[in-house]
């Protein structure tokens, strides 16, 4: 009886250890995935920040032929012809 019990316990121990090791592997894989996604997120954040920077927008605008704001001339009320008709 005793040897059977010992063998049984050994088998159970093996199964539990195997399960535990497998679970550990899954956790490690999940950790690796989290790290990979975080890293990708960081790279994307960098890209977004770089593409939405005013320097980049300014460059793109120039490439598209836009120019800087011309001199704005404001007129006082007395300079404006409000009523063209009598």
């Amino acid at each position, binding site marked *: 009886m005793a040897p059977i019990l010992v063998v049984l316990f050994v088998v159970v121990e093996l199964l539990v250890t195997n399960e*535990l090791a497998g679970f*550990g592997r899954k956790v490690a894989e999940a950790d690796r995935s989290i790290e990979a996604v975080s*890293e990708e997120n*960081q*790279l994307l*954040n*960098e890209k977004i*920040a*770089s593409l*939405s*920077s*005013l*320097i980049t927008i300014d460059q793109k605008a120039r490439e598209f032929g836009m120019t800087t*704001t011309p001199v*704005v001339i*404001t*007129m*006082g009320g007395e300079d404006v012809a409000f009523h063209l008709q009598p």
Partner: protein
Amino acid sequence: MGRIWIVFSILSLLYALLVVRLYYWQVIRSSSLRLAAASQYNLTLPLPSQRGSIIAFDGKNVVLNQSAYLVFAESKKIVSIASFSDSVAPILEKESKDLSALLSDSSRVWVPIGHKVEASRVDQLKNLKLTGLGFEKEPKRYYPESSMAAHLVGFVGSDENGKDTGYFGLEGFYNRELAGKDGELVIEKDIRGAPILIGESHRVEPEDGRSLVLWLDRTVQRIVERRLSEGVAKYGAKEGSIVVMDPKTGGILAMASMPSYDPANFGEFSREFYKNPIVASTFEPGSIFKVLIMAAGIDAGLVTPSTMADEPGPIRVGEYFIRTWDDKYRGMISMTDVLVHSSNVGMVFVEKKLGREGMLKALHNFGLGEFTGIDLQEEAAANLRKDSEWGEIDLATASFGQGIAVTPIQMVRAVAAIANGGSLVVPRVVKEIRDMTGKTFAMKPGKTRTVLSPSSARIMTEMMIAAVDRGEAKWAKPKGYRIAGKTGTAQIPVSGHYDATKTIASFVGFAPADDPRFIMLITLREPSSSPWGSETAAPLFFTIAKDLLSYYSIAPE
């Protein structure tokens, strides 16, 4: 019997010694022994925290973290040091022979060969598939707007232990919030130092740093930096600085100084560039200071805009004569005209009305000689001399801004009290602090005290509008807007006397005057095209004001 007592005494003594020794090891040395034992059977791996970002008012990052790595070599595992160096050196922008010499040092088994190397270069290195080449995460700061607002944000360098630490500006002031708290993983190790998988482990998660959301508006900052750069070149100034603030909240909308530096490559610049002159340098303000003394006179009920002062010629104070800037004297002039013509003689009249007590009260009231409380690391407060040390001539010259030193941030805060109806605010760069969960902590605008009544502030605003509309710089003012301001030209003290050829030209003003959206102070050191503020700082002010009024969609009246 005697021998028994001797043996008993010796045994007792030995027993006592044993107790003392046990107490020493188990109580006094217990913690150090526990640590020594733990280091023998535990392996501690640091889990570094991520530094928080710095975010502009519009939600866009001004500073964030970039994936980067520490590149290291394990010399013993390298097959051929020469070919290893030839392959790696060009990617790390190093000399192959230097790298080869470093790796040939037999006393070193683990050699760091590149710090904070970008992910793109690390990918190139990984593709080489070299034995003995390793990588470890070592994030670095990334500045998408390049060197924008360098003085404001500061930079991240290493402390004496090689740990990332913020220096100057926001990085320095908010270092604890930004840095977060490193975690650690403690696991049991075997005799060879390898971790035991089924051993006990203890993990303390790192707490990432908090992010700072600023009052800073990227567009305003860019306008200011571009115009300052143009202005410094156009007027041939040695240095220049501009601060733009919301006068109601004290929120800093933009802050720029030249010369500046690149926080990503701070090591390539002299240390003298690191300090932000707007908070850390003092200057004699000159005529822009007149608005504060005039405001104090009005608030005390001693003068009104129409009070007349006699300006017959140079006025004698003790053994000195005080002249007007153009050496022209207009006889009887009103207080408004004292500001319009920037009359030093007229200001001495106001100073005499205020008296010694009134002058000193005004200086203290406007926060001169004290820290403004701005959230930047290197703020300095120019000390005022002791009340008992102010002589007659000192008070007279202080009334027109000479013989007194202020920082630009002190000056802009004091004038903001006129713009906002009388409150001395605490300038703030950070609007809110955001933690990793997205929870935000608002940094409420701070008000130090009331220094003017609302009616005095209104009267003073009208006088400053007149100073713009009828003053020396009226030609540069955009039409249709009510802008309050004052020019300043201060001589620079050199070795105990004033150098007539060297000036600091300045302009302080706010717009729209009736409901100010911004207050701005411009200072240009030693402009060479003209020494006068009205011909340098003032036109620069109005150029930027036009840009800002257009940006804020404020139409002319």
